[in-house]
């Protein structure tokens, strides 16, 4: 009986690792006071709405991302859109793509789906892998820790992008591309989460309540689930919030280099790579996708920074 009581007492007195607000409600209260984070949230919400409602918005606009409009192009200028500012107007909200005349708003809205799906998917998988490896290293004994610790160091030091490019080149084109992007990004990008989870696990396992659970006869798996995982939440969420915009940049980057999503599927990186030949004839076509990509990533970065400040009280008062 005494051991059960001990475990119960340990669970009852279980204090959070830091004085940071825990639970989504407390996080939200802190975030709401952070103006930059709220601005980020507005951008992110707009982006999510744009992506989820892409069929609806394009229906309202009366366009779709695949139809060619040769009649809107100026063949004398090599296929630049007719009219000023890349053909922006009531029919085409953001103008049309040079040479094809496809509606730019529709391509950006559908591109948002790819961008969000790939970056969210990759972040989730990275976190899953990283937390798994970190827990295994932190709870698995000296040998496992030494081996996994080396693997984590290697994963972090990797020239991430260059190996990503090599990996994407090797896999045949028939493999579904968005899934492949998620997998490649996860396989290369789990190191940071793993390092954080390992460090946190190593520090949590020495706490009294974990020792109590061990004495109470809990298995390692149960300790990992019940005692360690809740303590990992704050640092991992903080890190993931900054990982997501990095993944967004990466997805756009792969598509920009022509090894991401394949046409005719629309992607921001792809739009930007075709924009590189239109600096002079159609600058709107360069500026609009640049702004959309930057604003989206910046929105996530601001929100992530807000989450970091809210969950890590040291960061809030100090400057680094």
């Amino acid at each position: 009986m005494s051991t059960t009581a001990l475990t119960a007492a340990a669970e009852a007195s279980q204090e959070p690792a830091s004085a940071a607000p825990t639970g989504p409600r407390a996080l939200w209260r802190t975030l709401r006071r952070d103006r930059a984070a709220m601005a980020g949230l507005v951008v992110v919400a707009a982006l999510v709405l744009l992506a989820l409602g892409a069929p609806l918005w394009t229906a309202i606009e009366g366009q779709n991302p695949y139809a060619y409009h040769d009649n809107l192009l100026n063949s004398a200028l090599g296929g630049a859109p007719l009219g000023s500012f890349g053909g922006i107007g009531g029919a085409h909200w953001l103008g049309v793509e040079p040479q094809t005349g496809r509606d730019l708003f529709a391509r950006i809205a559908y591109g948002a789906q790819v961008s969000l799906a790939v970056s969210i998917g990759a972040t989730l998988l990275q976190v899953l892998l990283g937390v798994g490896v970190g827990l295994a290293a932190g709870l698995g004994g000296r040998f496992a820790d030494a081996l996994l610790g080396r693997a984590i160091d290697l994963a972090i030091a990797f020239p991430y992008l260059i190996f990503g490019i090599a990996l994407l080149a090797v896999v045949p084109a028939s493999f579904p591309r968005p899934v492949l992007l998620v997998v490649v990004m996860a396989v290369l990008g789990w190191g940071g989460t793993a390092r954080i989870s390992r460090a946190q696990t190593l520090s949590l396992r020495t706490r009294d309540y974990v020792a109590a659970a061990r004495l109470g006869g809990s298995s390692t798996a149960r300790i990992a689930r019940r005692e360690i995982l809740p303590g990992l939440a704050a640092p991992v969420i903080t890190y993931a919030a900054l990982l997501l915009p990095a993944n967004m940049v990466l997805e756009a980057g792969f598509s920009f280099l022509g090894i991401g999503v394949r046409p005719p599927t629309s992607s921001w990186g792809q739009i930007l790579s075709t924009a590189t030949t239109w600096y002079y004839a159609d600058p709107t076509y360069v500026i609009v996708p640049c702004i959309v990509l930057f604003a989206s990533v910046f929105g996530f970065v601001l929100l992530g920074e807000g989450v970091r400040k809210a969950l890590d009280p040291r960061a809030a008062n100090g400057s680094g």
Partner: protein
Amino acid sequence: MRSLPMATFLLRRLLGAIVTLLVLSVIVYGLFYLLPTDPARMICGPRCSPQDVAAVSRAYGLDQPIYVQYWHFLAAIVAGRDYSTGPSTVHCGAPCFGYSFETGQSVDSLLLSALPVTASLTLGGAVLWTTFGVGAGIASALRRGRLADKTLTGLVLASTALPPFVLALFLILLFCAYLQWLPFPNYVSIGDDPVQWAQSLILPWATLALLQAANYARLTRTSVLETLNEDHIRTARAYGLSERRIVARHALRGALTPLVSLLAVDVGPVLGGAVFTESVFGLPGLGKLLVGSVATVDLPVVGAVALLAGAFVILANVAADLLYVAIDPRASIR
């Protein structure tokens, strides 16, 4: 008697680096082996008969088990390799990375012609962003106050959100198309015309520098401020040393160690940024070589560039460890 632990420390770091490089080479080689296409067929070209493909496979040793092939691959990098295609034998000198599937050129010669371009780009960029970053960092540290801190933090966040190709596109749009201060960049080698070389690299350098500088400024600011609060600085002040002298002689020294480690950490990301910068500005460096070979699935080139990039990152980390000890003798020897 600190030379002995020092020597073992260096030895351990070097051994660790070599092991990491070996693991890297296994991964790179493993990637090729996992590929479903037949390298012999790719070398031989589309019009080869099965007999020809078999002959190529024999000549390149592709008919042997994977571990033998991997051994040959490693041995070629260390000691060179002979390829015998029937009557003639081709010798491939010491760091031999094989031959391009696509053009038949030696990968070494491709790497050698691309390396100076990437080196010009990244080293020039690094000079630019450390100069501006450290300068701005010191200036803002001396002007203590929340505003400088907030501005720098904002700039750091903005530059993490800025993809390198977006910045590169924007710079071209602004300076080449709109203001027309610069011609559209067209790479000229430094041997041909140093002035045009620098001109063709201004915007690429600016791209890398703008992405990095804010980070260096913030780091410099934080560590200079920290050092200025330490006891020995107060002592120096009490002795009546001028503020300029204190900053130059003492505070900067404290900022040096974190700067070196940031530079080492940044080698990987900057090489990544160089891939985009090179492809937007049409610079014929390693990144452009990589992207071009990816398009044609030219595996020896892809593998060699990946391995080289990995080697740079690992070497940079070892170099940073050595520098710590040189800068700060107190640095812990682990």
